[in-house]
């Protein structure tokens, strides 16, 4: 079932220029998309792409200039947490007030009050005015209210960056559950890994236009890498090819296991890095290598052709094709770049080194299929290989430090 259908949605804002001339600013330009039940649709785009305007129109805060949107079902909109909180009121009073502003009826608030309090983890502070809350506590209470809206369509913007990691995880879980319960979520966030973990589909806005929509991985790759700078492959013509009188690089690309050139890859699946190079002189011992760097500039891995028969042997002049398979369950998620190099030793000489020649987006889904399993939290490590674990329960061993409380 389609919960939201947007057709030709356009929004112009009046713009007063210096000369006083009346101009308009096109914030949304003829948008068309749909949200089906059970979908979590991510909205990506840079500043000024029109994401917030879109959400405001769908929330009925501002009217569109033309086009239309049809929403089928109860809408909960969460453009900001804690709207309507009053600092002098207690936590309890604010729960009721802000829930009422978000459109909940008293009966519904009372029904989920305990759950809200439980979710926020602030039961001791309920009778305290929220002005003495820490900002984290304030946000937790505010999100707890919002999380219990139980709408059929949830519109949500930039609110996940609240609270500590634990609370964030709780929020993400809640949103995911909404999707799997058959509700629809429209989700704007700059926190791209949250989008990847959460969304079933994504759309990308740029200057008010819908640039692309589809699988999260593809749309994210499009967003993060940008259209012009996102080749999953790269070719050089002879005069431009990196190299010297000994060897030169002709092409490099990233392919998935089915041979398709990709700019986004699932870390749970193997992929290949291919390169083509030419050797221009006879009988030199050359070491082709690839380095994968993550978005922080850390070299995550380095590899050379050590497993091949020609490794360390002098090569004939001519054209070569090399391919290296990166195993599944090795990389962490993020934007990766590949550096291809050709080196000879004794004396050490670098014939070419194409730094960051291609980029791709590594995506770690949280469906249990990758090395992270169902662990949804942020992982602070440059690789996340699947290793052999053994965890055994020993019922016979005495437990010396069991807590007694």
């Amino acid at each position, binding site marked *: 079932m389609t919960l939201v259908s947007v057709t030709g949605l356009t929004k112009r804002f009046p713009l007063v220029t210096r000369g006083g001339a009346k101009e308009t600013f096109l914030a949304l330009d003829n948008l068309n998309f749909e949200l089906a039940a059970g979908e979590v649709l991510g909205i990506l785009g840079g500043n000024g792409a029109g994401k917030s305007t879109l959400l405001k129109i769908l929330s009925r*805060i501002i*009217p569109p200039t033309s086009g*239309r*949107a049809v929403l089928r079902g109860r809408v909960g909109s969460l453009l900001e947490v804690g*709207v309507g909180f009053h600092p002098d009121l207690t936590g309890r009073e604010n729960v009721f007030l802000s829930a*009422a*502003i978000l459109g909940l009826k008293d009966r519904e608030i009372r029904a989920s009050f305990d759950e809200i309090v439980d979710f926020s983890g602030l039961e001791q502070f309920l009778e305290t005015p929220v002005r003495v809350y820490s900002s984290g506590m304030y946000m937790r209470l505010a999100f707890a209210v919002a999380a219990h809206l139980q709408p059929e369509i949830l519109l949500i913007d930039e609110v996940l960056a609240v609270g500590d990691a634990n609370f964030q995880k709780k929020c993400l879980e809640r949103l995911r559950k909404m999707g799997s319960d058959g509700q629809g979520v429209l989700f704007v966030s700059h926190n791209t890994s949250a989008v990847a973990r959460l969304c079933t589909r994504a759309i990308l806005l740029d200057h008010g236009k819908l640039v692309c929509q589809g699988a999260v991985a593809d749309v994210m790759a499009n967003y993060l890498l940008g259209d012009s700078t996102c080749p999953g492959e790269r070719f050089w013509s002879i005069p431009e090819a990196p190299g010297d009188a000994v060897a030169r690089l002709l092409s490099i690309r990233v392919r998935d296991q089915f041979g398709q050139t990709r700019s986004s890859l699932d870390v749970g699946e193997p992929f290949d890095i291919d390169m083509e190079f030419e050797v221009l002189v006879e009988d030199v011992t050359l070491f082709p290598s690839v380095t994968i760097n993550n978005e922080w500039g850390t070299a995550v891995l380095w590899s050379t052709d050590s497993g091949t028969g020609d490794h360390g042997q002098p090569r004939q002049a001519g054209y070569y094709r090399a391919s290296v398979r990166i195993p599944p369950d090795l990389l962490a998620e993020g934007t990766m770049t590949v550096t291809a190099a050709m080196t000879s030793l004794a004396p050490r000489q670098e014939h070419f080194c194409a730094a960051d020649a291609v980029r791709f987006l590594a995506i770690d889904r949280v469906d249990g299929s990758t090395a992270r399993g169902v662990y949804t939290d942020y992982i602070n490590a440059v690789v996340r290989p699947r290793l052999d674990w053994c965890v055994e329960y020993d019922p016979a061993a005495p437990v010396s430090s069991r807590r007694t409380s």
Partner: protein
Amino acid sequence: MEIVIDGRRLPLKRQLAEYWEYRGLLRHLVLKELKVRYRHTALGIVWSLAQPLLPALILGGVFGRALTRPDAAGVPYGLFLLAGLVPWSFFSSAVSMASGAFVSNGYVLTKVYFPRAVLPAASVLTLAVEFAGGCLVLCGWAMAAGWPVRLSWLWLPVLFLASALFAFLISIGIASLNVLHRDIRHALPFLLQIWMYATPILYSPLLVPQRWRWLFGLNPMTGIVLGFRHALFATPFDLRMGAASACTALLAAIAGLTVFLRFQDALAERV
């Protein structure tokens, strides 16, 4: 439930249904306002009674003897004043608070949808609670001064509702214009002050020459104040003045409502 967003105004019936759905919000906003106003005060809502009561006591005490006139029908001047000051101070504070409701809640308007008139309605209702307290004091004083409780007191709740509704309807218009032209916020206090002197609060309309009274009656608040006095003390009520008041009140209310309906969708963009 299907919502169509196409830039056109919702049908009036749908709008009214929405206000009904959001009645809980209205109640919470009124409660919030009352709590915030009177939390940590020892006297609480009693403070709100001081506003009409204090001038009534002072002016009544000072000018009480000098200004007792036959046209006041023997009502002590202080009581006479209070009967005008209670509805007037409700009206003027309700209008000035409700007229700022969109501007002062601009942030909320841009972040969440709800039927917009809930905000000024909450301001008017908050002050109506205090107005009700003022009416009780007024009735109490009247009884203490020896005025019998009579059937015409039943007019008081009618006038109460009429003045609250009038204040609400003109306020939603002023509040919308206030978002577009912030001068209104500065001009309003002056306007209300002039309006007060144009209303027979400190004096009796009988002081106005007969042939100008209809003009005087065009002020909607004249009708309310005279109605209050008539209901309480059976002072003469000029029907023609009352009718003139009702007519202008109706026109002003329609104007307020029209302005609000015209601008309500654009409020969040302009605030």
